[in-house]
């Protein structure tokens, strides 16, 4: 049996190597995806174009402006002493956020009254808008607290007071909140899912379409030998891809791998049994390569990108959908991979999702071998 499995695997390797297109896909695609996704999906909110409408032209208003421009979050896109042009600026997207300091700002401050400023954000991109408003709020509150402390100091009640509650925030595991650190490990999951399902979905169907399956059926080879044999080259190729993605992520984007690389590979193998298994099941059940490819795309890519937590947080989904995600293998793998990459977690904490993947994979493979009856 082992001999036959080896032979089937060897033959599958030859098929893959002699088909230039699939080879290119397997090597080039992962790197391409890392680069594209890494550069393109950047939810980091930095250098937001800010429009400043200063109607007060005072030292305090310039102070406030300074607070906004200090640091990387805002860049001045427009500076005006006039409210009129603001509509056009926001419409055309030259600024995503505007700070309007009304006339009388400095006066209100020195009179001890509450001074008001207006912050307008472009809501058509709600992700950016929410973050921009958050930054703006924080900046203004800090400014406000600083002004209050200074005022107290001036009125001579001691050496000044610190604000009663001060929040210091820190982002563990990804201190700079670089979205690329979040995206790239997830990409491993998406790429593995996509490639493995696509490639394996073709393998059995191709034999059927070319007629070579007849010769296999009439031989003593058993379905499970065929399935395991066919899987082996794809597992090895997928390993290669995992290494490629990790390397590309590290070299191009400095994505850290805080956990053990060995564990990443081991658990990738477990995930692969699930995703390759799905591809195989499709292959065994499809009548043509066209069908196989289409079904593979729909059944694997869409759930793994949309429902796994890759792009959209699972917790934010409706409860029914959240239940649905519990049968998506990519979701578990995503948890695993991000935990290893960013939190450096070990198998002790990750055994539950790992176990699910293992059982899912074994189940699907068993199902495939059942369906692959040696009959036409």
């Amino acid at each position, binding site marked *: 049996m082992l001999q036959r499995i080896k*032979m089937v695997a060897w033959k599958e390797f030859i098929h893959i190597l002699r088909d230039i297109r699939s080879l290119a896909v397997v090597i080039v695609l992962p790197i391409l995806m890392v680069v594209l996704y890494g550069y393109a999906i950047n939810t980091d909110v930095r250098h937001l174009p800010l429009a400043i409408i200063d109607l007060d032209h005072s030292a305090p208003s310039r102070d406030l402006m300074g607070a906004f421009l200090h640091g990387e979050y805002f860049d001045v896109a427009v500076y005006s002493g006039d409210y009129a042009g603001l509509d056009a600026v926001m419409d055309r997207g030259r600024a995503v956020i505007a700070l309007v300091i009304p006339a009388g700002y400095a006066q209100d401050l020195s009179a001890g009254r509450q001074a008001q400023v207006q912050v307008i954000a472009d809501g058509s991109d709600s992700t950016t808008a929410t973050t921009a408003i958050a930054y703006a709020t924080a900046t203004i509150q800090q400014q406000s607290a600083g002004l209050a402390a200074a005022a107290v100091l001036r009125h001579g009640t001691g050496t000044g007071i610190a604000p009663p509650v001060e929040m210091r925030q820190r982002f563990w595991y990804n201190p700079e909140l670089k979205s690329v650190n979040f995206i790239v490990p997830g990409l491993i999951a998406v790429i593995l899912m996509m490639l493995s399902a696509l490639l394996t979905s073709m393998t059995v169907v191709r034999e059927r379409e070319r007629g070579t399956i007849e010769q*296999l*059926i009439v031989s003593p080879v058993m379905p499970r030998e065929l399935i395991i044999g066919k899987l082996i080259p794809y597992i090895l190729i997928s390993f290669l891809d995992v290494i490629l993605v990790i390397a590309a992520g590290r070299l191009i984007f400095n994505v850290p791998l805080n956990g053990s690389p060995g564990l990443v590979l081991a658990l990738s193998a477990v995930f692969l049994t699930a995703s390759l298994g799905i591809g195989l099941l499709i292959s065994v059940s499809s009548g043509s390569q066209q069908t196989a490819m289409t079904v593979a795309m729909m059944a694997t890519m869409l759930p793994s990108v949309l429902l796994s937590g890759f792009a959209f947080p699972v917790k934010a989904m409706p409860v029914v959908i959240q239940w649905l995600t519990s049968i998506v293998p990519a979701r578990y793998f995503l948890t695993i991979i991000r935990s290893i990459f960013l939190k450096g977690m070990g198998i002790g904490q990750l055994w539950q999702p790992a176990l699910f993947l293992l059982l899912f994979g074994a189940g699907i493979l068993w199902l495939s071998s059942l369906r692959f009856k040696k009959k036409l």
Partner: protein
Amino acid sequence: MQDLVKTFGTFTAVDRISFTVPRGEIFGFLGPNGAGKSTTIRMLCGIIEPTSGQGSVAGFDIFRQPELIKQHIGYMSQKFSLYTDLTVEENIEFYADIYGVPLQRLAERKAWILEMAGLKERSRSLTGELAAGWKQRLALGCAMVHEPEILFLDEPTAGVDPLSRRAFWDLIYDTAESGVTVFVTTHYMDEAEHCNRIGLIYGGRIISLGSPADIKRHAEEGGNVPDTLEEAFIRLIERADSANAE
């Protein structure tokens, strides 16, 4: 085989076919396209499950022991079914392994097949690049790589030029002489003359069974025995058609 039946939905492809083939015989299944030849041969090889009936191949029951049967038979399908993106050598090695040819025998079997098929110089060529006649010979070789007792050949010379067909039948003769039972389907009447016995199949039924001479005698009409199997065949078919029309 006894009363083998195969239905696909409402279509009866094989309608109670019975026959026996002794060891070492070349048995031919002759009939027009769509008569049920390929379906029958596939049932014998365990590729298709019969709807009903009984049968045994090489002493093993076709319903209960299909996997054992497969170890003892070689099969060459109608449509070329070796891997076109593998070399001649790789195909031979693949099937040798699949059929469990032991390592010590592998080199010998490979050499034998290459010699037999005349492909010694082209063992490294991609199978897809071979001409049809060579492909068939390679397929025959691969079907025999494990020295099976019975060979099933489904229209092995379809689409091959007459010279190659003659050469091919020489190969089949040699094989039968070495004690292998050969079950062959064909629609080339002249080839059928080479067989020890023939089953004439039409509309899923055997309408005549016996040696070529027997069949010609069977087709006798008014004292006239046909010279060729083709003539015999046509007469027998017409007889069957008019019998059906009644």
